């Protein structure tokens, strides 16, 4: 098995992955897997997705050299601009793929969970485009702090369901979306927003996000020394890494310090797969906390756990204060306001600039910061 190719039997990435869902969801997962395998081998499906990515989502997104910040930091910083994709983040890549798949499977409704709201907006957008219904589950706390995205989802015709259980963030929205899926597998397709969940989702979502890394690979003169991306569940990072996994580039995923499943967690089962999770001594899942709603998650996709275990990628953290500073810094030096999530990757680069001196660093700027403006007022 090559790096970042198809998972092994039963959806395993090393000891991680799998399909830990109730028996009632097994046929639904099998159906998604069969449909994805079939679609991914079908040139017409690929062509239709490619066309939507081009004429609708605005791909390819550019790689922008961050000239002034590079000079300040003493390195060459290249930004892969997912903030310029339609709906403002990388989430649209995956959602267009899954929405096309849902339509191909004859489903009428998309279910989605969202943290920052970017996946919810992308899901609502794709549903509108393809004439599907859309129900988005969102923690009450995230509804408060990402209000502009809630308004966008509603305007696009989606139903936003507030989730009041647990930490009232992404973790609990995911639980609720899965519970709804259990009861609605005939008509609904569960459109997961990151490289997590039961097999085939971690693999499928990474394949839909692979476009980030492959595009970037073709856009740079030579393979960068370091490739950095922020990690909530890890979809923008997985998509980026997939384009460089077979090179000598150092791959770095940056989690929120308050949601650091790789550095602060241990192996466990959450949301349908086995991976690294934040949990207490008794096995209860811990509550994550981050200024960035999209990284406020106690788990991480199973392939990242595997990339970490095998040493192919390394994982680090960034704290709220340095992240906010990084947002301001990119805004002032390059005229780009990044999402709080994306700024985690930048904060890590800033902190490690002296170690990275003279190197070329490619960073995925996963989304734009419009949704976060309230935090800066």
């Amino acid at each position, binding site marked *: 098995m090559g790096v970042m190719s198809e998972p092994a039997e*039963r959806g395993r990435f090393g000891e991680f992955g*799998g*399909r*830990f*869902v*109730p*028996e*009632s969801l*097994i*046929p*639904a997962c099998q159906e998604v897997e069969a449909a994805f395998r079939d679609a991914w081998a079908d040139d017409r499906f690929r062509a239709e997705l490619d066309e939507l990515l081009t004429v609708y989502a605005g791909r390819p997104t550019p790689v922008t050299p961050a000239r002034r910040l590079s000079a300040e930091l003493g390195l060459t910083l290249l930004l892969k601009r997912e903030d310029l994709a339609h709906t403002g983040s990388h989430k649209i890549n995956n959602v267009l793929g899954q929405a096309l798949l849902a339509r191909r499977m004859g489903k009428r409704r998309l279910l989605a969970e969202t943290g920052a709201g970017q996946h919810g907006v992308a899901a609502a957008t794709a549903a509108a485009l393809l004439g599907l219904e859309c129900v988005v589950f969102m923690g009450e706390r995230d509804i408060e702090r990402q209000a502009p995205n809630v308004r966008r989802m509603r305007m696009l015709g989606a139903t936003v369901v507030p989730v009041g*259980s*647990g930490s009232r963030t992404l*973790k*609990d929205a995911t*639980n609720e979306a*899965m*519970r709804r899926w*259990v*009861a609605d*597998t*005939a008509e609904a397709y569960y459109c997961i927003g990151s490289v997590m969940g039961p097999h085939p989702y971690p693999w499928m979502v990474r394949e839909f996000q692979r476009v980030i890394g492959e595009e970037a690979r073709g856009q740079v003169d030579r393979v960068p020394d370091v490739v950095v991306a922020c990690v909530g569940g890890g979809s923008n990072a997985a998509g980026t890494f997939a384009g460089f996994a077979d090179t000598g580039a150092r791959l770095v995923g940056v989690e929120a310090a308050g949601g650091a499943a790789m550095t602060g967690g241990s192996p*466990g*089962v*959450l*949301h*349908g797969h086995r991976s690294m*999770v934040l*949990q207490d001594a*008794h*096995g*209860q*899942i811990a509550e994550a906390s981050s200024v960035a709603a999209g990284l406020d998650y106690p788990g991480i996709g199973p392939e990242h756990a595997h990339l970490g275990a095998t040493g192919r990628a390394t994982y680090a953290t960034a704290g709220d204060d340095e992240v906010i500073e990084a947002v301001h810094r990119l805004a002032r030096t390059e005229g780009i306001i990044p999402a709080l999530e994306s700024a985690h990757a930048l904060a890590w680069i800033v902190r490690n600039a002296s170690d990275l001196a003279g190197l070329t660093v490619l960073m995925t700027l996963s989304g734009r910061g419009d949704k976060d403006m309230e935090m800066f007022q």
Partner: protein
Amino acid sequence: MIFADDNAKKLVPYVTGGVTEDWADCLRAYRDNGADAIEIGLPFSDPMLDGPTIQEASDRALARGTTVDGILAEVRALRAEVPLIVMTYANLALRPGFAGRLAEAGISGLIVPDAPLDEVAPIRDAANAAGLDLIPLVAPSTRPDRLRDIAAGAQGFVYAVSVLGTTGERDRLDAAAGPLATAVRTLTALPVLIGFGVSAPEHAAAAVRDADGVVVASALMRRLLDGASPAELGTQIARFREAI
């Protein structure tokens, strides 16, 4: 073997461990009013297959500082004299030494709703090594070949989930329940119990026309959360007993 090898209809009430200070009194009340076995839920922070009532019971238990070890200590002290079955999620069930600790406390069966056939081997091996039965769930969506495989590996009994959905009270028994139980009964000599949505004695009476028994959970936990005493739950169990 969880149940006596007879044709009597089985009644299995549920309680969330640690949900209230006196939750263990529910075990006594259930036993004294005709429970054939009792299902104890070990609360988990992220219960994927549970509806609002059991979620609330789990949250309340965890908020009280309930731990698995604390629940098992209470169970051990109780000497329940009725088979006890634990229901909990894979993240807890996969912890090293878990099955052994259950067995020490006198538990005889284990249900893990998010460990389906394909993932169950390590949990079943550990359970069996400790002398516990691993009870599988089947759903209305389970296809015939898979149903056969699950029934073939079943231990204790087969738990037939009556609905495509989470736990929770319902107005009537789902029409899928009877045919599912009937299908499983042709595949195994073990008892087949219907659970999920068995909310009233009439539902239980309807369920046992096709099944060997019922599991009653949310209807009891709803009352408990609303303030009913263990004795009142016992009275409710007596009604279910009478109905089947």
